[in-house]
């Protein structure tokens, strides 16, 4: 009996903290798998419109993005507050879309080119004029699969 009493006096042993790193690494891998690298810095402000019938983009790697919106505050002095097109990392005009699409297409394998989707990420306050210009240019480049980016409306 005395042996047990002796044991009770002992302070509780500290939990091994060696497994914390394993847990954190697991979290790390989770985030590495579920997220994707932010490829471009947003230079235009985009508040996407809401829609209830949205579908998910199937092949993220086969999509190219055209951002349309008002330049962010840092660029407003240079580019004004009118809606601008952003391709990759810089402000472009409608006529640059052709080269952009050609470059995106070249980066894909032959078999994947037909599945290329152009995602138009436009701010909800943009006028349709600029969007129409983009659409016409895309038709000229025969990049016909497009997607209007929109967020799911919570109803």
């Amino acid at each position: 009996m005395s042996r047990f009493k002796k044991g009770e006096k002992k302070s509780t042993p500290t939990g091994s903290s060696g497994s914390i790193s394993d847990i954190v690494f697991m979290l790390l891998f989770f985030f590495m798998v579920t997220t994707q690298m932010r490829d471009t810095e947003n230079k235009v402000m985009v508040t996407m419109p809401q829609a209830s019938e949205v579908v998910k983009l199937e092949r993220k790697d086969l999509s190219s993005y055209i951002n349309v919106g008002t330049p962010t505050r840092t660029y407003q002095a240079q580019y004004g507050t009118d809606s601008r097109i952003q391709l990759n990392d810089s402000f472009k005009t409608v006529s640059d879309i052709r080269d952009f699409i050609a470059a995106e297409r070249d980066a894909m394998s032959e078999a994947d080119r037909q599945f290329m989707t152009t995602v138009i990420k436009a701010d909800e306050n943009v006028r349709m004029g600029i969007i129409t210009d983009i659409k016409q240019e895309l038709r000229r480049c025969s990049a016909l699969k497009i997607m209007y980016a929109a967020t799911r409306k919570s109803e």
Partner: protein
Amino acid sequence: MGKKTPAINSSSTADIAFLLLCYFLMTTTMGSNTGLQRRLPPMPDANQKAEDQKVNRRNIIVVKINSADRILAGTDPIDVSQLKDKIKIFLTNPTDDPSLPEKTMTDIEGFGEYAVSKGVISLQNDRGTSYHAYIAVQNELVKAVNELRDEFATRNYGRDFNACTSDQQEIIKKAVPQNISEAEPKDVSRK
């Protein structure tokens, strides 16, 4: 001599892993890209006459959005909230109205004969239309088609379109096609 090397304190590996974790949290996006998918019509050939794509007048409904975001469906002005029902009536033509689109009996593989509507929705917008209104209208058009597909699926397979197998979905897509044409840009306000 014979001295044991002390165990390296491993508690800091957790901190290192946390730093890495924070780095990935900052540089990546939880990209859930959603949107409305569309297929643009190919650019018409310059030598080709535009005439050969003539569609019967009753088979087409023109939805126009002007620069003040007002909507005109067919001949009368309409609110966004009513657009879906109008499109549904247009596409189903329940009373076989001669002013609404005709239906053709089409043999769908794996299903049989079905009267497929020949209706086409033509969407026209002004340069001054706001993108917000445009997407709202696009959404209503897609919603009308989706609801019709759901109804078809419930009638024939007893479940929603999304719950159907991919073969069934193909059949439904053929029976209730999504014919939304994004017309050549036009200045709507000038008319």
